[in-house]
């Protein structure tokens, strides 16, 4: 029982740390220009990605963008990547309005939780 209690405390500490970083990320995203966001997303190209662990965080990032950015910003981002053709099609589709509608409808904010239930990893 002591072990379970200890693990739960560590888990809570990790969640608190993560929550603070989510707050920082939200503020940073809201303050960013479209160009800043394009530069961040460009890092998910297979040619520039630092590895699969980085690329796999694309979907969690897209959830947060659709939660924190306005429609005009998202439309501008989608236009930039759609114009780059097939290699960027999956990114453009993730930034497209239908996907945004799905994500916004699916993300829950459970009662009692400080943050929406974003995907972690």
């Amino acid at each position: 029982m002591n072990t379970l209690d200890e693990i739960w405390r560590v888990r809570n500490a990790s969640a608190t740390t993560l929550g603070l970083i989510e707050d920082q990320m939200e503020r940073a995203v809201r303050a960013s220009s479209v160009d800043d966001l394009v530069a961040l997303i460009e890092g998910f190209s297979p040619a520039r990605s630092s590895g699969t662990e980085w690329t796999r965080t694309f979907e969690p990032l897209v959830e947060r963008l659709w939660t924190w950015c306005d429609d005009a910003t998202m439309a501008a981002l989608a236009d930039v990547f759609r114009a780059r053709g097939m290699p960027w099609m999956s990114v453009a589709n993730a930034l497209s309005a239908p996907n945004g509608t799905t994500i916004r409808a699916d993300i829950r904010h459970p009662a009692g939780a400080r943050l929406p239930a974003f995907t972690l990893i």
Partner: protein
Amino acid sequence: MVLIQGPATVGRLYEEIQSVRYKEATDTFCRLVTEEDRPLKSMIREAIAAAAPYVQVPSHLMRLPTGEMRGVNYDHTILGWRGAISLMRELGDNRGVLPSVQAMWYVPQGLNVWEQVICEFPGHYARDGEQCNRKFPGPDEHVNRFDGPAWNPPKIYFEDHAPILGGSVDERLDRMSWAIAEGEKAEAYGLFLGLAQDPANRKRLKDAILFSGIIDLQDTIINRGGYQNIGHKALRARALVDIADYLGWDQSHELMYTVVPDLACSPHLHGLWTEIANICRMEIPDHASFPKRSSKPLTERELDILTEALVWGGPAEVNSTIMAFFKRGAGILDIGDGVMVAFQKYLIDVLEHPNAFLHPTHALDTMNVIMTWCRDFDNPHQVKGIFMGARFMNDTVRSNAMVPRDPNSRLEPRAKYRGWADGIAIDRMLPILKQHLLAQDAPRACALVDSYLDRTTERHNLLDTITYAACHWQNDPHVMRNCSSSLEEYRANRTSRKDDIIRGYAKHQARYIKRALTHDCFNLYADHFKVEGHA
């Protein structure tokens, strides 16, 4: 759909194959079997012989005028025959002929790959992958001239050779393995032919050729373009062994001509092999004497750990996880069985985009070659084979994960249809499963399979249904190869999770991208062999 009148002859079959008239060639092939009473085995041999001179390439890397390199695909005609021969026994009777008809349909489309990729010869690479007709259209814009017939005879890049005789068997086997690794095609081929003449050599020759194929495997496909072979050396060696056993080694000269020179074709990729050999030498120097099976197979917890490493980890985690299992005394096949079921998690739960199945299922088929080699032969390097197969699987997962997932290819969860599937009576499920496999409706097909597996212990008819439905799809030998691998591995697997191989198999066959959405080949087969169910 009977295409040609007049007698069906073997000469006509050769001419139709070599001129890329694949529909006519398939019709002739069927007529030779049904009207002329020619044995199927003999016609398979003739079809292999007709294609044999035209399946070699100068290299699997082509230097472009810019100085960059592009990959040149491996011959798939022989892979279709290997799958067909394996499935002949599985499906039985006239249904068992369907995979051979599919293999025949593909053969004329798979010749002269080097010319196809530069749009100088018709076939499926030129027609589909390279989209040559857009670049070099013919006079009639409604006709894709890269669908055949050919306007040039196919090229021969490697002439047939005589056997090399003389020297001890040990010496010749060593020289052959060296020649394959060094790219000495003529010497490798000649030595193989010489060794194959004596039945007493064949067991060792099979082991040696499989070993040479298995160790030639890229360390990664991530951002490598064409500098990889995605297991084709091993797959090719396995095809040679299986088909020669079926045809009879004395009837397999053209088969050997088809396969052996290409095993020595560049590029030669021994980086992964070198890495695995090094870590085994350092960590488990006595690995040559490790048992095939032990009294300590993987536990459920260990299967979970292996799944985590294979699907979500990196190469070092895969190495260290498997190394720990060997060090604690698990057997070679115990761990190999674990790798095979752990990988299914990726097929079942992660893969969505139809294009993304290609590399993972090449890795699965390669692991099947490795496992068969481990089951059927004794070789001191088999421990390393398990690492090689697992690393290839993990690399394909990581390669796919380098591209952000496309939400437009998202699949509905199979669990959504579980209630629907559970409401169908067991004795009605398999025909419905076939319908959903043919409709490429993966969520419902997988829900049906989940429900069936939970409600009955019957497996034979389930596997038969998936396999027969899969063989309706034309133009793609990968389909039959994956059927064969999945069936073999399911039957040999001793883990508690072997049913996951069926779940992964059904998902693959219900989702993997199709090269054609019509069933002309199936319908031709149905006409000739009096089978119901035009698709």
